[in-house]
C-alpha cells in the first residue's frame, strides 16, 4: 500500500489519538461527577437510606477517585495526543482503576443489592469500541471476575456486607445470586462479542477507505507528473513556432500576399492559445508556492478586485456588460500569497465576463465577517448544470454550454482555482442556476489557523 505516512500507523485503529483524547477529556469530567456523586451521596446517604454506611471508607474511595482523576487531567494537559497506542494504554489503565474503585464502592454500598452494577456494562461496551480482539475480552473478564468475586465473597462471608436496603437478605439468597451472576456474565460477554464484531467490520471499512484515498492521491500525483512532463516537452516547440510565425509576419509582413498574412495571423492566434495552455499547465503542476512566509504580503482585496475588473473592461464594453464592485468602506486586508489570490480571482472574474449574457451584470463583492473574509463573483450568464458542478474543476473539462459560448479558454482555469484554494487553505463554493448565472464564493478564515492565512481590516489611517 502506497499509503500516506500520516495515515498508515493509525489505520488499524478506528479512532485517531486526537479524537480519542476529546472523549478521554470528557470521561475525566464524568469521573469528577462520579467522585462528587460518591462524596455527596455518602453524606446524604445516611438520611435518605436510613442505613449506616461505612462513611470513612466511602470518603476514602471517593478521594481515591479524585486523586486518580487529577493525575489523568494533569497528564492530558502535559502530553499532546500524538500517539494512539499510548492513549489506548492509558484508557486500559483507567478502566482497570475505574473497575477496581467501582467494585470497592459496590462492596461498601450493598453489593449485589446495588444497581450500580450496570456501570460494569458501560465499561465493557466502551472497551469493545476502542480495543481489538483479546483486549476486549480481557476487560470483560476482569469486570466479570471482580463482580463475581465481590458477590461470592459476601455470600461466603469472606467480605463484609453493608446493607443498602433495610433488612434485605438478598446477599445470601443463592438462587438470586446465581441468577444475577448468570445474567451478568451473559450480558457482558454478549456486549463484548457484539461490539467486537461490529468494530471489526467498521475497521475493515475504514482501512478500505484509507487505501482508496491513498490510491486516489497516488493517481492524482501521477497525473500531475504526466502534465508536468508534457508541459516541459511542449513549451519549447510551441514558443519557437509562435516566434517563427510572428517573425515571418513582422519581417516579411508587407511583402506577403494578403491571404498568406491571414493564414499566419490565424496561426499566431492558435499558438497564443497553446502558449496559454502551457502557462496554465505550469501553474497547475507547479502550484503557486502556497503560504510560505516569503510569499506572503498584505493584499487589499477591494483594490485587487477593482484592478481585475478593470482588466475586463474592454470585453465588457464590447458586449454591453456592467461590471460592479461592492466592498466595505473600511479596506479589507488579507495577509496571503498575492500572486496566487490574484490568479484565483482573475480566473473567476474573466470566466464571469466570458460566460455572461450580453448586457448582463458581473458583480464582485468583498465581504468581511467576524471570523472570515469572502469574495463573491457572480454573473448572469449560461450558468452551470448540476451534473457539471464537480466536473468543471477537472483539467480540460468544458461543459457543452461553455464550449458553445466561447472557443477561448484553456479548460484549466477552474482546476487552477481549486488547486490554489487548497494551497491557500480557503473554501470554494459554487451556486448556479443554468441559464441564469453562476456565483463563485471564495472564503478564507480570518484568524491565523493551521494554514497561517491571516486576514484583518486595515489599520488606522487607511482611507477606503
Amino acid at each position: 500500500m502506497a499509503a500516506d505516512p500520516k495515515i498508515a500507523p493509525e489505520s488499524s485503529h478506528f479512532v485517531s489519538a486526537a479524537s480519542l483524547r476529546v472523549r478521554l477529556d470528557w470521561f475525566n469530567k464524568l469521573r469528577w461527577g462520579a467522585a462528587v456523586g460518591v462524596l455527596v451521596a455518602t453524606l446524604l446517604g445516611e438520611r435518605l437510606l436510613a442505613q449506616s454506611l461505612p462513611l470513612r471508607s466511602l470518603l476514602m474511595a471517593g478521594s481515591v477517585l479524585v486523586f486518580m482523576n487529577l493525575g489523568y487531567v494533569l497528564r492530558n494537559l502535559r502530553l499532546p495526543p500524538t500517539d494512539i497506542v499510548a492513549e489506548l494504554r492509558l484508557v486500559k489503565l483507567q478502566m482497570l482503576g475505574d473497575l477496581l474503585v467501582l467494585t470497592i464502592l459496590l462492596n461498601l454500598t450493598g453489593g449485589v443489592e446495588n444497581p450500580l452494577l450496570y456501570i460494569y456494562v458501560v465499561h465493557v461496551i466502551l472497551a469493545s469500541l476502542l480495543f481489538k480482539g483479546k483486549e476486549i475480552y480481557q476487560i470483560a473478564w476482569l469486570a466479570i471476575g471482580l463482580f463475581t468475586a465481590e458477590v461470592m465473597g459476601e455470600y461466603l462471608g469472606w467480605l463484609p456486607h453493608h446493607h443498602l436496603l433495610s433488612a434485605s437478605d438478598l446477599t445470601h439468597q443463592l438462587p438470586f445470586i446465581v441468577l444475577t451472576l448468570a445474567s451478568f456474565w451473559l450480558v457482558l460477554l454478549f456486549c463484548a462479542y457484539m461490539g467486537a464484531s461490529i468494530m471489526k467490520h467498521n475497521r475493515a471499512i475504514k482501512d478500505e477507505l484509507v487505501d482508496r484515498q491513498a490510491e486516489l492521491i497516488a493517481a492524482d500525483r501521477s497525473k500531475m507528473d504526466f502534465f508536468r512532463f508534457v508541459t516541459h516537452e511542449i513549451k519549447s516547440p510551441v514558443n519557437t513556432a509562435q516566434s517563427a510565425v510572428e517573425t515571418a509576419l513582422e519581417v516579411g509582413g508587407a511583402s506577403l500576399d494578403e491571404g498568406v498574412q491571414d493564414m499566419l495571423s490565424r496561426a499566431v492566434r492558435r499558438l497564443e492559445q497553446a502558449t496559454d495552455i502551457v502557462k496554465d499547465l505550469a501553474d497547475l503542476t507547479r502550484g503557486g508556492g502556497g503560504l510560505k512566509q516569503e510569499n506572503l504580503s498584505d493584499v487589499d482585496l477591494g483594490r485587487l478586485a477593482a484592478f481585475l475588473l478593470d482588466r475586463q473592461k474592454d470585453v465588457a464594453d464590447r458586449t454591453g456588460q456592467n461590471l460592479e464592485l461592492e466592498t466595505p468602506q473600511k479596506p479589507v486586508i488579507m495577509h496571503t500569497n498575492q500572486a496566487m489570490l490574484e490568479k484565483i480571482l482573475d480566473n473567476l472574474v474573466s470566466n464571469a465576463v466570458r460566460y455572461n449574457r450580453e448586457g448582463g451584470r458581473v458583480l464582485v463583492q468583498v465581504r468581511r465577517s467576524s471570523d472570515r473574509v469572502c469574495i463573491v463573483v457572480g454573473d448572469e450568464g449560461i450558468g452551470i448544470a448540476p451534473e457539471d458542478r464537480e466536473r468543471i474543476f477537472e483539467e480540460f473539462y468544458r461543459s457543452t454550454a461553455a464550449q458553445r459560448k466561447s472557443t477561448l479558454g484553456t479548460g484549466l482555469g477552474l482546476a487552477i482555482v481549486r488547486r490554489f484554494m487548497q494551497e491557500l487553505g480557503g473554501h470554494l463554493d459554487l451556486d448556479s442556476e443554468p441559464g441564469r448565472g453562476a456565483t463563485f464564493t471564495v472564503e478564507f478564515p480570518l484568524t491565523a489557523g493551521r494554514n497561517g492565512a491571516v486576514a484583518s481590516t486595515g489599520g488606522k489611517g487607511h482611507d477606503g
Partner: protein
Amino acid sequence: MNKKTILVIDDDIDLVEIIRVTLENEDYEVIDAQNGERGIALAKEQNPDLILLDVMMSKVDEGFQVAYELRGSAETKEIPILMLTAVADQTGFDFNPDKDADFLPVDEFIEKPVSPRRLVDMVRKHLPTSV
C-alpha cells in the same frame, strides 16, 4: 558605421535563426553559440555589444552559470546580458530584475515566446549608446 554585434547563446537552433532574421533585419550583426562554454569563448574573442542568453540549455540553470561567469570576467563584465526565459522553466530563481538586481547578473528577462517587436525594443534599450 560599424554594425553592432549581438551574441545569441541558445541550443534551440530554430530560435537562433528566428532571432537572427529579426535582428539582421534591424541591421545588427548576429553571431551564435549553441552551448555555454562556446558562448563564453565567443564573447571573449569577439567582444559583442550585447548578449542574448537562454536560461535553460542542456542543463537547468546553465544560462545563469554562464551569466555569472561572463560577469565575473574582466573582458566581458560590461556587456549587457538579456536572458530568455519561458514561464514553465523550473530554475528555482525568481525572475524579478528589480528586486534581485543585486545578485542576478543579467540586465533584463525576456519571456518566451519571443515577440520580434519586443526583442528589438529590448535590444535597443540595453545597447550601449556610444561605441
